[in-house]
């Protein structure tokens, strides 16, 4: 048993997880340190508020407010957990988008643009088809797939520029992001979907519920009262599993990864690298599009249409989600939830203390910074492994001990 655990420990995946966990812990500690420094430098905040802030950084999800004595209380907070799941939905999908592109050796910084393209297509379809003629469920499906398709098309543009004209995909993505931001503003500017019924909502598009279209709650709202949770999180998880299957169990996925490892070797092996780059970006785009689509199909979110000066942060936050998961599609589900949990912690921080939610963005940045050299952390973790496995390698018996230990490792993982 101990042997098996040891082998599990020595798996590459385990070390990836360990590296990520270490990065997360370091990020949280860094955030706490900043709070400590600010608290000490600013006498009006004081040490008590530092203690509150640090507790919220680590357990903001479970904060339930303050009691009569003014002390923080903790416990199961259904609204927070539900909102965490709701906010995780687009993060998981943009994270998947970035991860898929990474697997093909592309840095998809274009997720914000694809997210906007998906949002626009979804809102147009969901609000333009009258629900009195077509059943809302069918409109929902049309809107969702329309959003994915729009995202895919928008993602395919930098893909084609990269593969056909050899334009740096980072640059092409940045340009298409801003073009998308302006185009979306333009189409909504001339559309008749601007919310003119509620005059407090100037600058916003109608909610999809104006046309009776909304993602089914699937009963999740019964568990998490007073939260925005809906079936979108399930859709996101299913998409993550589909991506995982495509990447690990199909020839197509193998070809994508081969292009990522070495484009020229892949071409030599007869893989159509240019086609694969475009397809990879299209898939990435469709996932980012789905993120926007699900976020605005929830029925309780409104889209601020005059967005030409800013790009949606959800798109950029896909990058840390993917990096933290080491680009593993299943891992993305968990890191996406972790990121949205930090979001909730930040909100609680703003509500309950003198600090504000931007400290969680600092934490995310520190985590990404550390994950930039996660390879180094992995090697450091692996150092101990090298010492321990030295012994069997020195074994004079050349019966392929290494191959055996690998097979054992796999079994250990299954068990």
């Amino acid at each position: 048993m101990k042997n098996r655990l040891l082998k599990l420990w020595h798996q590459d995946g385990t070390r990836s997880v360990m590296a990520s966990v270490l990065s997360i812990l370091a990020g949280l500690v860094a955030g706490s340190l900043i709070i400590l420094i600010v608290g000490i430098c600013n006498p009006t905040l004081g040490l008590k508020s530092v203690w509150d802030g640090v507790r919220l950084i680590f357990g903001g999800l479970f904060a339930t407010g303050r009691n009569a004595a003014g002390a923080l209380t903790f416990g199961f907070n259904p609204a927070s957990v539900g909102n965490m799941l709701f906010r995780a939905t687009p993060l998981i999908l943009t994270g998947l988008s970035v991860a898929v592109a990474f697997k093909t050796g592309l840095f998809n910084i274009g997720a914000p643009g694809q997210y906007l393209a998906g949002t626009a297509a979804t809102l147009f379809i969901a609000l333009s088809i009258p629900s009195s003629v077509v059943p809302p469920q069918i409109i929902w499906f049309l809107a969702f797939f329309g959003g994915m398709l729009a995202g895919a098309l928008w993602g395919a543009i930098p893909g084609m520029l990269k593969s056909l004209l050899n334009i740096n995909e980072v640059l092409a993505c940045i340009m298409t992001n801003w073009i998308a931001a302006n185009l979306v503003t333009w189409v909504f500017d001339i559309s008749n979907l601007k919310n003119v019924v509620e005059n407090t909502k100037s600058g916003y598009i109608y909610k999809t519920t104006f046309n009776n279209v909304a993602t089914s709650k699937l009963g999740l709202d019964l568990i998490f009262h007073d939260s925005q949770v809906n079936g979108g999180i399930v859709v996101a998880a299913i998409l993550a599993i589909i991506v995982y299957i495509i990447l690990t169990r199909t020839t197509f996925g193998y070809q994508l990864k081969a292009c990522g490892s070495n484009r020229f070797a892949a071409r030599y092996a007869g893989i159509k690298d240019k086609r694969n780059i475009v397809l990879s970006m299209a898939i990435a785009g469709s996932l980012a599009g789905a993120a926007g689509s699900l976020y605005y199909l929830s029925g309780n979110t409104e889209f601020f249409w005059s967005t030409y000066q800013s790009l949606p942060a959800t798109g950029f936050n896909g990058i840390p989600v993917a990096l933290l998961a080491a680009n593993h599609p299943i891992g993305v589900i968990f890191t996406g939830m972790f990121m949205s949990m930090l979001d909730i912690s930040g909100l609680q921080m703003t509500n309950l203390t003198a600090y504000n939610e931007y400290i969680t963005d600092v934490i995310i940045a520190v985590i990404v910074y550390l994950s930039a050299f996660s390879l180094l952390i992995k090697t450091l973790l692996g150092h101990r492994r090298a010492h321990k496995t030295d012994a069997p390698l020195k074994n004079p018996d050349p019966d392929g001990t290494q191959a055996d230990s690998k097979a054992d490792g796999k079994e250990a993982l299954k068990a």
Partner: protein
Amino acid sequence: METLFENLTSGSMVFLIRQTLIYAVPLMIVALAGVYAERSGVINLALEGIMIFGAFIGVLFVRLVQQWGWFDAVKAADNWVGLQGFMLMTMAVAAILGALFSLLLAFAAINLRADQTVGGTALNLLAPALVLFLIRLIANQNTLQMATGDSASWFMLKKSMFGYGRTDEVGFLFDTFVNKVYLATYVCILVFIIMSVILYCTRFGLRLRSCGENPQAADSLGINVFKMRYAGVTISGALAGMGGFVYALTTTNCTSNGDVAGFGFLALAVMIFGNWKPLSVAGAALLFGLFKCIAASYGSLYVLNGAGEQIYFLKDLGINTNFYRLLPYLITLIVLAFTSKSSRAPKAEGIPYDKGSR
């Protein structure tokens, strides 16, 4: 002929040139920042983040000095030499802090051999987060402003400073290039020229560039690749930090809100567009600045016809505002599509230097 001359010296033209310079100059200087880092072999995706940080530091410095009251007397006496000196000092502070901030990237990329794209992304996430966190604590809102007045009343060059009255007519050249212009614009152009000369005409510049092309060969000739790359990234950080403050000063009225409207990324585009060469970078920045300026103010641009009437030709076309807004980005993509074949990035950029590899 006369109409042409009148057109070239009209109020519209003065406005166009001024505005184009305002957009082009921060782009130019930050693109040069990118050139320095990449020519030394490190991809600096963090330009945006460093700009945001530099803008914040600059505005904070102005605010603090104003609050200490050091420059109130100078301002009251309208001593413009003192005020411009104050502005130059702020630019220097933004540059120094920008350089310090960029050390984070240098450490990760050079010492720890981390993925430079990811490291840069981390800085891009860190800067707005940290800046907004602090702004909220300092100002209790999402924007940090000057303590008193606005950037125009404090730092702009005005004709009154040169002995002209408020209603005096001044020549076209004076009106375009001196009146209501920030001295920072010219300081940036000067710095741009000096840094370009350093990159191309000095031993240091040659050594720096060699580290981005073939670090192994450079090392074999006794050049310390690590030091050179540190120099490249630090200079890059200083230029980007300064550019960030100049952006905040000239386009957002000396305020900081954790955002520079994607200028850092645009500078990256300008750098690639300009093929990593200072002169082409300057040209690309001017082109981009011109289109940015048209997008912001196409409605008020006019030409004079033979009868001396003002024709608002762009407004009369009746094209949607949003089209002009997306034009700079679209044109960059199209031009890149045509020029990408001749694009030549520094050979060793993005590859951590490893003494042992061949």
